């Protein structure tokens, strides 16, 4: 494993490589298959470079453990609002989740439905591309349209255009209070209706999830205490048809949704499907799955399927995409295909930023 200790070492390692490099932060969520070559770890690039709570800004190096970032934020009453998930239990991996890994995966949790994804909180980044060139993009300010947004392009690119060495993030205040309204016994279709109605109301719902196996529907409200009490009451009244709703005050009940914990100990393949909430109920109605957990008000569904079932093929064409995040059958691709036009643009970018194809190459490349 190559573990550079500085950005210039990272650049030299990439520039000088003769083999493919498998880039990882803590190795906690590596998806897809790895071929021959060396593992390039960012774990040696550590440390918070700047944290300014009054400006809601944090800058840190890619290998900084996420736990260290979250602890620093918590000490100031702030947080990463997009709620990055921890998939270690789900994927059966260990290791230390890092900032860079989170960025490369665009890892976002239940609050994505209200505040946006990881990519929405990236203000700037320093990147080393596949030629070893160091590129800076964006900055550490909230609004920035100076040049193309290469920093955001790197979010979710899984290290295939460059290795992030440092990133600037927008952070937000952590709420004073959290309350979850819970209903039980709704079927899928009614639960999807309830979540859609909740998210269309002006009560700032920051989580909307439904677990099919238990028939549990959860709606989260956060903020100052009195405001949470008011909005929870108004929302329960608004959704009285779907009730009764009971209140739960433990914020941690959202961790299981965030981390896909329902399927952590269970055998089978795990799929993550992003689709239109208005279409997802009908899509999943006849699908070959053993269990489902809806998040993002139905914009995301976690599915547990028998090993080797190609759920993507079973669903056919739909607006969105299906990713198999756990499963052994190599005949099934982790990610679905892109349209021809998008694929051509993506390979054009790969050719510019990683002309030798050394960063996390696809088996087919």
């Amino acid at each position, binding site marked *: 494993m190559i573990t550079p200790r500085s950005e210039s070492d990272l650049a030299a390692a990439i520039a000088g490589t003769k083999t493919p490099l498998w880039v990882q932060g803590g190795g906690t969520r590596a998806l897809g298959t790895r071929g021959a070559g060396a593992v390039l770890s960012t774990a040696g690039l550590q440390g918070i470079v700047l944290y300014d709570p009054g400006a809601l800004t944090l800058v840190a190096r890619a290998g900084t453990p996420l736990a260290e970032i979250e602890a620093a934020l918590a000490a100031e009453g702030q947080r990463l609002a997009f709620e990055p998930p921890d998939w270690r239990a789900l994927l059966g991996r260990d290791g230390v989740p890092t900032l860079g890994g989170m960025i490369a995966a665009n890892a976002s949790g239940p609050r994505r439905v209200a505040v946006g994804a990881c990519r929405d909180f990236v203000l700037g980044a320093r990147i080393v591309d596949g030629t070893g060139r160091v590129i800076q993009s964006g900055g550490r300010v909230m609004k920035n349209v100076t040049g193309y947004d290469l920093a955001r392009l790197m979010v979710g690119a899984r290290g295939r255009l460059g290795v992030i060495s440092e990133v600037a993030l927008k952070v937000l205040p952590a709420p004073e209070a959290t309350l979850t309204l819970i209903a039980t016994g709704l079927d899928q279709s009614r639960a999807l209706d309830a979540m859609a109605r909740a998210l269309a109301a002006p009560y700032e719902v920051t989580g909307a999830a439904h677990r099919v196996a238990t028939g549990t529907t959860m709606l989260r409200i956060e903020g100052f205490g009195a405001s949470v009490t008011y*909005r929870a009451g108004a929302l329960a009244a608004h959704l009285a048809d779907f009730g009764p709703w009971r209140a739960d005050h433990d914020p941690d009940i959202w961790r299981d949704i965030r981390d896909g914990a329902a399927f952590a100990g269970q055998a089978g393949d795990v799929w993550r499907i992003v689709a239109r909430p208005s279409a997802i109920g009908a899509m999943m109605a006849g699908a070959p799955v053993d269990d489902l957990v809806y998040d993002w008000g139905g914009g995301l569904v976690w599915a547990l399927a028998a090993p080797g079932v190609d759920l993507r093929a079973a669903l056919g064409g739909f607006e969105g995409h299906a990713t198999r995040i756990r499963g052994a059958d190599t005949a099934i691709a982790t990610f679905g295909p892109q349209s021809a036009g998008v694929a051509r643009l*993506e390979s054009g970018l790969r050719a510019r930023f990683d002309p030798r194809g050394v960063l996390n190459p696809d088996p087919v490349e």
Partner: protein
Amino acid sequence: MDMPRPDPAILADRARIVARLRDVVAPDAVIADDIALRAYECDALAAYRCPPMAVVLPSTTDEVAAVMRICHEAGVPVVARGAGTSLAGGALPTRDAVVLGLARMTAVLDTNLTDRVIRVQAGRTNLSVSAALADDGFFYAPDPSSQLACAIGGNIAMNSGGAHCLKYGVTTNNLLGLRMVLADGEIVDLGGAYAEGDGFDLMALICGSEGQLGIVTEAVLRIIPRPEGARPMLLAFDSSEVAGACVSDIIRAGVLPVAIEFMDRPVIRAAEAFTRAGYPDCEALLIIEVEGAPAEIDDQLARIKAIAAAHNPLEIRESGSDTQSAQIWLGRKSAFGAMGQIGDYMCLDGTIPVNALPAVLRRIGELSDEYGLLVGNVFHAGDGNMHPLIIYDANRPGDLEKCEALGADILRLCVDMGGCLTGEHGVGVEKRDLMGVQFSPDDLEAQMQVKDVFDPHWLLNPAKVFPLPLSAGRRAGTP
């Protein structure tokens, strides 16, 4: 400010190109008359003007694709234009360019309240998107000051923000999908009416690419339930430093207003003279707006009041009615017009870390004295997006150049303090030659390589964003 010399071969071919364009759009959708073309010689950065070779106003994506194929074949530069409200010269053409205007593409194609999305043609104006949703209790959040006139396509090109993006984000945070036409006429769809894609975030590139990567013809936008209510509060201070510290304390206390607007004395006085909004005559004024139910608003304003009180404000004025709210916003919303009463102005758009506000304001004051030009500051304080307005006299020889030099000094200052050249207006031609202040040659080369992928022949808005000497080879077809 230089622009490339028009290509004589294209100018000589003008009649044939115009005739071909007339074949693919409605008869009245090609403008080639010299008088009529004058309407397209500039955008809201009116200091720079040049009429284009022709203007095309397509009505559909297929027509845009047909226009692009013709221009691609003939090697004609294409400048996309939404509503022409760019403050950076984003829609400024050259003599050999075709302006592709989106003004006829204004339809709402789909609204889905379950998915909380609206799909519109890219020429639709920002405010009319929200207007189409008003009966359903939703709105589209980014609200640039020009929202009555500016088009969604232009908002995407410049990643527009507005006063309320402290809470709701800018265009890139509210765009879910788009349809675009590439330089060679190929139609590509990115994203859609769902949360996110699984490939490279190409939409992140398109947002803020100033019409250089493709022509966006349709957009899928995230829509948000309208809050129960909103109410502003006005805070007056006798120093900018104290006002800046108050902003920082509010944010640290966990209150996240939808807007925190800042005005300094020159702007307060101009706005007051222009609107009689009843503003106190002071060094710095904050307008802070919060949202929610009446009791929630009361609670948030009480928290802000308590924080502000520790900074000894000259006045705290809380709105108690819609009329009072409108009165508080009146001067701020008219600030640019009010400054325009004093003279010609250039509006800058640098963004700085919030804690650098006092130092930057002090230095801008010094620069203003050195150059002998009045500078007023009105800006989005919550996110550090400054809008210094430099007053000059366009009829006085040398004044524009002096104003440009002062503007450049202010933008260099923003970058030196950890900020950037432009927060929401875009680079255009205005900040093009300053890009080297913020970026290294490698940074700019990487950005130009992105353009190479989308637009290999550099036909789309080619003379913008990148300093001309850097892009010369690519524009000439010899990278």
